């Protein structure tokens, strides 16, 4: 059982994530003196972050705050984001604003697959981040990151417009750290589409079919209900070094943000 443990699907953007977490973009030696690329990077990232068109896409309560953010008081146009595109083909950023239900999840994954690279996902609010107060329900997905990779999480229920803008600024920062030489979307080989989840008796991810089958058809099915694997019952505290790394990154970030 342990050997067939579900793989973690969150690592699709691991590469980008690592880049940020370690806070050190590894520039190969032969590129160190490449003024061309770094300047190009600057222009490339500046232009991308200054006109990041969000998908016109509201799910629930948070969408109201998203609209308020786009309206007169907070005015998303200041960030070049007022052009909300209804078509995923024309948008760079998906703001998942609200509760993701199981019935809606296939549609969201499809829309995400239709977005052109480079694409970003911002999980707005508690529900999109981790299921929120409705997590315990039978038809709510506990966090959109179960299906698609998320770049920025904005907690809050609902996040105030300021909190959302802060999340967007964090996203800008992330964009600024990317380099044209390392970004995945210019690499060879197609970026695999994410398999669309299927609505069965309950929603299921095609990537997890193997483990589901083991539970429903295998020996475990004989026992009542899905077996609870003991190994997972133990709380899994965060690794100390991970904690330290995050704190360091946060401290560094704060130091940058706050002029002494």
């Amino acid at each position, binding site marked *: 059982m342990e050997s067939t443990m579900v793989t973690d699907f969150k690592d699709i953007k691991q590469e980008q*994530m690592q880049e*940020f*977490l370690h806070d050190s973009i590894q520039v190969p030696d032969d590129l160190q003196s490449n003024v061309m690329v770094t300047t190009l990077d600057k222009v490339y990232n500046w232009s991308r972050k200054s006109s990041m068109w969000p998908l016109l896409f509201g799910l629930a309560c948070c969408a109201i705050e998203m609209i308020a953010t786009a309206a*007169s*008081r*907070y*005015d998303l146009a*200041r960030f070049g984001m007022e052009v909300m595109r209804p078509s995923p083909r024309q948008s760079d950023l998906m703001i998942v604003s609200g509760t993701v239900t199981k019935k809606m999840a296939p549609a969201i994954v499809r829309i995400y697959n239709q977005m052109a690279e480079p694409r970003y996902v911002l*999980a707005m609010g*508690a529900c999109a*981040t*981790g*299921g*929120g*107060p409705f*997590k*315990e329900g039978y038809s709510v997905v506990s*966090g959109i*990151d179960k299906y698609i990779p*998320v*770049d*920025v*999480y*904005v*907690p*809050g*229920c609902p*996040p*105030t*417009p*300021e*909190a959302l*803008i*802060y*999340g967007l*600024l*964090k996203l800008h920062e*992330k964009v600024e750290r990317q380099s044209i030489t390392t970004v995945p979307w210019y690499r060879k080989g197609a970026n695999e589409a994410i398999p669309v989840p299927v609505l069965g008796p309950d929603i299921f991810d095609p990537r997890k079919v193997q483990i589901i089958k083991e539970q429903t058809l295998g020996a475990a099915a004989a026992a009542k209900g899905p077996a609870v694997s003991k190994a997972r019952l133990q709380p899994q505290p*965060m690794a100390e070094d*991970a*904690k330290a790394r*995050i704190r360091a990154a946060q401290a560094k970030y704060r130091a940058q943000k*706050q*002029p002494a």
Partner: protein
Amino acid sequence: MFGTGLLKGLGVTLKHFTDTFTDDRRKEPSRYEGSIKLDDGRRIIDQPITQEGLLTIQYPEERRLLPERFRYIPMLLWDTEIGEDRCTACGICAKVCPPQCIWIVRDSDENGKPITRPAEFYIDVAVCMSCSFCAEFCPFDAIKMNHDYELAVYDRYPQLVYDKEELTVPLEYYAALWPTQFAEEQAHRAKEKEEELRRNEEKKRAAAAKAQAKAAGVAEAGDGAAKPKRSKEELDALKAQAAAKAAAKKEGGADAGAVETGNAEAPVAEDAEAAAKRARLEELKRKAAEKAAQRKKEGGA
């Protein structure tokens, strides 16, 4: 006439445009009336209700003045007056929490006896619904709502599960955010303390009087001359009760004594625990000072 409605509507938009345009051309636009200008060019905007239209708050540079009752995510208070967490791990916040996103591990001493202090305190921010029930129902004023909304992160685990360390803020920070409520609470706490003292005094007096009376009663009973007001059984029961009470009191006293001796020992040799505590306090203070300074600046106070 066809088209008058359209023209009228366009007139409204034109008026909007000219109003804001002329105002923006002024050196100090009237829309900044009532806002606070900070040293670094940033502003705190508090639009007065009499101000026409709606101001655009240019967020990272300009911020809205948050009302005192603004609530976002809970925070735990570190009582700087006594140098301890206010939280007693009573668990009421975990019980009233509608999405059940609070986990508390009660601390215990070496013998495994639970003590009134949380060892761990987790809040899953990705579930918290900012309802502020925890703050409303906390009987010790230990958990309050933070105003900090700049919480966006790149990774959900583990950043969005706040542990005790991340949640704890010193009292001063709370006092800066919630000045009115803090003052009310302080007044109430002072009153409560006074009342408790008075009650204790009264209890002591009553106990003394009782003891006197009892002694007298015993003496009387010993005399056997006066007719006993209570039967022997009743007296026995009362005695047993008194003994139980005294024992309970003794226990409490012993506890208090332990605390006192602990305090007495501290100055002699500052043990590791106290040092850690002090260090933690310093750390918290420093953190809070940073935050509070920023907040103050924004609050214009």
